[in-house]
């Protein structure tokens, strides 16, 4: 496994060298063809504060919106990673918002109790958002730029791809503010 992943990584990094202006192998959608994130004004209750918050309240930040549920194994793996991303890139303007889709809220609460997320968690128990975002697997995460456009989508959470996820975040953070 370990032996296997390094050449892949090396290949990923060297492949991005071919693109002169950019270093990233990730599939960042160019601004021109990016779509605005849907439902930015929908207010959902936040786990940490019990306040109703919406995505547009964080406009100006790079937002990682992650759709998850307590019964989903890969979601479990992604939690520590999202906590560390939030901590690492907070000062650069990253906001991680994980939207919970459990239909039984108790299960979500038990999960959150165990995993103690270091990022914002919203409850969408009526599943208002995922359809229009185009969630096709669990978890699915969307990277939204400072202008509110969806610029990258990751389906699932794979340890072997975390450097790619992080590069995408770093790139969007570095994009200049307008």
């Amino acid at each position, binding site marked *: 496994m370990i032996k296997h992943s390094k050449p892949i990584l090396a290949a990923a990094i060297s492949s991005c060298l071919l693109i002169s202006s950019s270093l990233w192998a990730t599939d960042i959608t160019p601004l021109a063809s990016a779509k605005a994130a849907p439902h930015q004004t929908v207010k959902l209750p936040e786990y940490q504060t019990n306040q109703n918050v919406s995505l547009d309240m964080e406009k100006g930040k790079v937002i990682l919106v992650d759709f998850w549920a307590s019964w989903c194994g*890969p979601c479990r793996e992604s939690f520590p990673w999202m906590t560390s991303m939030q901590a690492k890139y907070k000062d650069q303007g990253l906001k991680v918002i994980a939207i919970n889709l459990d*239909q039984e809220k108790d299960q979500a609460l038990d999960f959150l109790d165990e995993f103690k997320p270091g990022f914002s968690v919203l409850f969408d128990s009526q599943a208002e958002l*995922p359809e229009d975002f185009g969630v096709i*697997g*669990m978890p699915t995460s969307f990277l939204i730029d400072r202008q509110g456009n969806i610029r990258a989508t990751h389906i*699932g959470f794979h340890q072997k791809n975390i450097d790619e996820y992080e590069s995408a975040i770093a790139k969007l953070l570095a994009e200049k503010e307008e």
Partner: protein
Amino acid sequence: MRRIIHIVGLLALPIIVSGCSDLGVKPWERDVLAQQEMNLISDPLESSLDDHIYFSKEASSGGKGFGGGGCGCN
């Protein structure tokens, strides 16, 4: 009689396959199916022990399923 059963069985297959597109759930509605108990073979070891007994006591064996279900995550 036997032939008829064969034909009925084989006909049922494409019907089931084509009928599938309307069935199913959204990715976030898989909470129940994600339970380990909802795997079609939830106890592989127990099933293999049963199969071993029936294999040595009856003329028919095999043909059964493989795992399936699960959270269908990503």
